[in-house]
Every structure is written in C-alpha cells, then in structure tokens.
C-alpha cells in the first residue's frame, strides 16, 4: 500500500469519524410553539441561536395566541405538532392538568441548578423570563398624583383615566383583595373595593399593541401595564414612569414545557438548557427589560437597576406579588366572569 493511499484512507476515515461524532443532532429540527412577533424573534435571536451552536440542530417555530395554541395542543394530544411549548405560568398548569406535558427531569437541564425558586412552577413546566404588571403612567399628563401604593389607583383625580387588561383581571383582583386584608385565594374580600375603582376606568386594553397605543396617544394616561411594554414604549420616546408600589408588583412568568408524545425529548431538554443558560438569560433580560430566572445571569447595569427587573433574592421576595399559578389557572374563569359582569359591563 502506497503512502498516498494510506493518507487518503486515513483522511476518509477521519472524515467518517467527524461525521459520526460531530453534533449528534445536526440533522434534527425541534419544533417550538410560541407567540408570534417579538416573542418568536426574541427566542430565535437568543436561545435558538445558542441551541444551534451547542447541538447543530435547527429550530422551527409554530406561532399563535395562548388559547389558540392550547386548543391545537389539545386536538393533537397524542401526536403533538410541537416538541416544546412556551406559555404563561397559569396556562402551563392547564397543559399539565390535561396531561399535555411531560414531567420534567431537571437533572437533564444542568443550567436549571441556578433557577430561582419562583421559576420552578410545577413538575411539568419552568419559568423562562419574568415581568411584572404594575402601575405605569404618563407624568406629562398626570401631574397632580403621586403613586406609592396600589391604593393610589383609587384616587378620584384619576376618574376616567385608567386602563387595565381585558384578558386577565387577576392582577387587580389580587391587589384589591390585598388592600382589603385578603389575598388571591380569598379574593371575594376585595370585591367591594374593586367596584369602587369602576369610575376610574376609561378602557380595557385587549393586547400589548392596544396597551401601547392607548398610553402613547394619552387616551389612557394611567395603566396597569406590563413592564416590558412600558419599557418598549419608553424606548420609542413616550414619557412613561413605572412604579413598583410598596405592596409589590404582580409577577408574571412565561414558562416552557416539553409536549407529551414528543419524539425529540432529549433535544428538547437541550433546548430548555439553552433557554436557562445564564448568557441567554442576560441577553433576554437586556433586550426585553425583564427579570432573568437564573441567579447567575449578568445583566447590563442600566437594565439591572430598572424597576420591575429582579436580580436579587430580596427583590424577588419583597417587590413581587405572586399569585399562586395553579390557583390562578383554576380561578381565572371565575375571576374573569366576575370582572366582566361587575366591572366591565
């Protein structure tokens, strides 16, 4: 055998070895169910990028609203169209209760060792990023009112100026209960208090874009607003002040779970690990001005100091009002119905 032939055979063997031992998932594609628009773009630019680097596998997104995707998951129960689902913490409980999620083995997610306790939602889903619903207002339009407590929303000067989400009254229901000596579980204690707030409502916004438009054009200069939306509008030049009331702001966590019946469970765990990677978490927090769900994410200092961005255990403990996610999943219908019947109509 000539030297040249040996060299060629060696090169071929090396090539075969590289092909066999290279990224094991290079030919695979993970299907991810998520909201469309900026949320899909966010995950594509951060976690999916990291995941591709680590595994060589691609990601395909299936987008839709929270409820649309829940319905689709229910209809394709044994043969899910996605391997991973992003959804809110309480809707995640609906997936879990209906047996649509795999039980998670966090030993397969090394980065989950640094998860904050508040992000361990259930044995089936964990947090991916957090935000708050809190008081946001236009200081150029609301000049005579100061906000230090949720109770300030009830001030008569705010008559006909307030907006809140029409799709989820749980924030105000929990707050009204708290101000009346109760909590989300004993929410009826706040019913009378919440009815007193009715004159101050001008409108109820129906989605993020609607919220942003109504505060940007001054139509509703005070809102119970998603912190990320407020920061986005501030970036667009709208003068908004975000307040963390002394009682705390209502925490929201978006979550991730693996669909039961997924044929790519190992790859799905690798993706979840990429989502809770400290670098990815910092990137997400810096882009969206939300809170990372791991303790070892290093945020840009100007982001870390923003109200509603929690980076220390004290902030998570003292500044966040956490409505039990399972309770919220079970009570949402009751709360929504009561709110529609007594406040909105």
């Amino acid at each position, binding site marked *: 055998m000539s030297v040249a032939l040996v060299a060629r055979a060696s090169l071929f063997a090396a090539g075969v070895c590289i092909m066999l031992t290279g990224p094991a998932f290079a030919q695979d594609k993970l299907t991810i169910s998520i909201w469309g628009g900026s949320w899909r773009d966010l995950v594509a630019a951060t976690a999916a990028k990291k995941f591709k680097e680590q595994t060589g596998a691609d990601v395909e997104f299936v987008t839709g609203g929270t*409820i649309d995707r*829940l319905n689709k998951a*229910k209809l394709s129960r044994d043969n899910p169209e996605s391997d991973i689902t992003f959804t809110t913490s309480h809707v995640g*409980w*609906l997936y879990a*209760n*209906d047996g649509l999620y795999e039980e998670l083995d966090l030993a397969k997610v090394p980065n989950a060792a640094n998860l904050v306790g508040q992000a361990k939602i259930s044995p089936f889903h964990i947090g991916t990023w957090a935000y708050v619903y809190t008081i946001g207002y236009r200081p150029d339009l609301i000049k005579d009112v100061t906000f230090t407590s949720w109770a300030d929303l009830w001030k008569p000067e705010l008559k006909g100026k307030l*907006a809140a989400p*029409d*799709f*989820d009254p749980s924030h105000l229901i929990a707050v009204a209960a708290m101000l009346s000596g109760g909590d989300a579980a004993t929410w009826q204690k706040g019913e009378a208090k919440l009815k007193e707030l009715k004159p101050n*409502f*001008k*409108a*109820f*916004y*129906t989605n993020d*874009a*609607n919220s942003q*438009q*109504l505060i940007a*054009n*001054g*139509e509703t200069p005070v809102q119970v607003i998603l912190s990320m939306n407020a920061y986005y509008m501030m970036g667009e030049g709208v003068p908004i002040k975000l307040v963390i009331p002394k009682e705390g702001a209502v925490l929201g966590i978006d979550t991730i779970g693996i669909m039961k019946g997924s044929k790519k469970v190992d790859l799905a765990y690798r993706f979840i690990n990429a989502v809770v990677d400290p670098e990815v978490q910092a990137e997400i927090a810096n882009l969206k001005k939300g809170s990372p769900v791991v303790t070892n994410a290093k945020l840009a200092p100007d982001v870390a100091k923003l109200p509603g961005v929690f980076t220390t255990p004290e902030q998570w403990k003292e500044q966040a009002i956490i409505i039990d996610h*399972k309770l919220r*999943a*079970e*009570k*949402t*219908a*009751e*709360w*929504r*119905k009561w709110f*529609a*019947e007594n406040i*909105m*109509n």
Partner: protein
Amino acid sequence: MKARPFFWAFVTPAALCGFGLAVALAALFQFSLRAYVPGSLEPGGFTLENFAALMKPLYARVFAETVWISGVTAICTLLVGYPVAFALVRTKRRVLKSAILIIVVTPLFLGEVVRTYSWIVVLGNNGFINAVLMKVGLIAQPIQMMFTRFGVIAALVHVTLPIMVIMLAAALAHIDRDFERAAESLGAGPVRTFLTITLPLSAPGIVAGLTTAFAWTFSAFATPQLIGGGQVNMLSNLVYQLGFASFNFPFAASLSVAGLALTFGVLAILRVLSRPLEAIGPH
C-alpha cells in the same frame, strides 16, 4: 326531465361544506350543554347551567346593545352608501366610476384590525377629528369619541360600507331607466322621480343590503373590542371575555348558541317586515 350535467359537480362540494358546518354547529351545541371544570380543558357532564347563567340582566343588556348597534349601523350604512352606489351606477365618466369603485372597495383589502387601529388614530382625543376641530376653534376640549357607541358605530359603518354599496349598486343597475324617463315626460322633477320611481324600485337592494349589513355587524368583534375598549360590548366581545379569555368554553358555546338563535330571530323578523318593501321592487 331535462338533464343537468353539472348538477352533482356543483352539489357535492356544497353538500360537503354544509356537512362540515353542520358538524361544527353540532359540536358547538354539544359544548354548550357541558359543565365547565375549573383548571381543566375537558368539559364535564351534561348540564343546562350555562343557559341558566345567561338569564342575568347583564346578558340581556349586551344582547339588546348588539341588536341596537347592528340596526343603527345598518341604517347609517344605507344612508351613506345609497348616494355612493347611485353615483357609481349613474355616472357616465369611466374614470369617476373607477375612482368611486376603488375608494369603496379598498377597505375590504385591509384587515379589520388595521382598519380599526386607523380609526383609533382618527377618533382619539389627540386624533385627527379632535385636532382639526380644536385648530379651527370649534371646540376647546376634545370630544370623547373613543370607547363610545358613536365611535364603534362610525368604525362599523366604514367596515360595512363596501358590502352595502355593492349590493345597492347591483339593484340600481337593474332598474329600467324607461320608468324614470316616463315619469319625467309626465312632468315629474328629479326629486319626485327619485322618490316615486328609483327609490321604490331599488327596495330589494335596500332590503338585501340592510339584512346583510345587520348580520355582518352582529358578529363584529375587532371593531367593538378596540374602539369600544371594554366600555361598549357586543355579543362577540362577551363570548371572548367570558369564554376564550377564561377558558370557559362551555359558557362561551352557550353564549354563541344564544347569539345564533337571536340572529335567526332578528333576521326572520326583518324578513317579515321587509316583505311589503320587497314586493315593490321589480325582481
């Protein structure tokens, strides 16, 4: 019997569509009779509770508001649409005809959400109308148009106008002009000719347009949702608020069934009321 070669070719797809619709309606009806289980997607056993819960005055009020808004929208659309349709049919200048047609039909090419967001820009306190009125000094403070019935109806008229104009134009185009010429030759002026000849002969188009506009508006969602801002609620908004946003699909289904029954009821009444009007027309 005369052979109808394409009969089955046309009937089969229609029958399949009809079957699909019937199955969907049956599923909706079935869901409306199931109990809601908190925290679960699966409905419980059969119950009439969803319909019993509809007996609250709130729901009657929203149903009445839906009928009222749909009715006023249909009438306003007719009042705005009739002159436009008349001009579209009667103008002899092709350029003008095309321009009217394009202006009328363009809204159909925009999504309902996009159209509605544009109305927020027009109707808002800092919007186009208030800005102009304040600039010319007609008002000192902005007029509240957003989150009012007026705002919702104005936007709904815009959404419904193309349908109304197209239906009226079809009716007006079919009117035999000799009737009008005969009236004029007998000494009737343009107004009398219009009121005694053109308008009655276009009655079938008016009835069809009103009925379609009413049904079209009855199911409106995005416009009352965004312009009404939770302060003006129609039936679809209630279905969304109470059903889909809170996962109570059985209750949402019962609201939909009740809404469907109400639509059929109102349309049947409209049909009876419009029969004498329709009889005037040439078709």
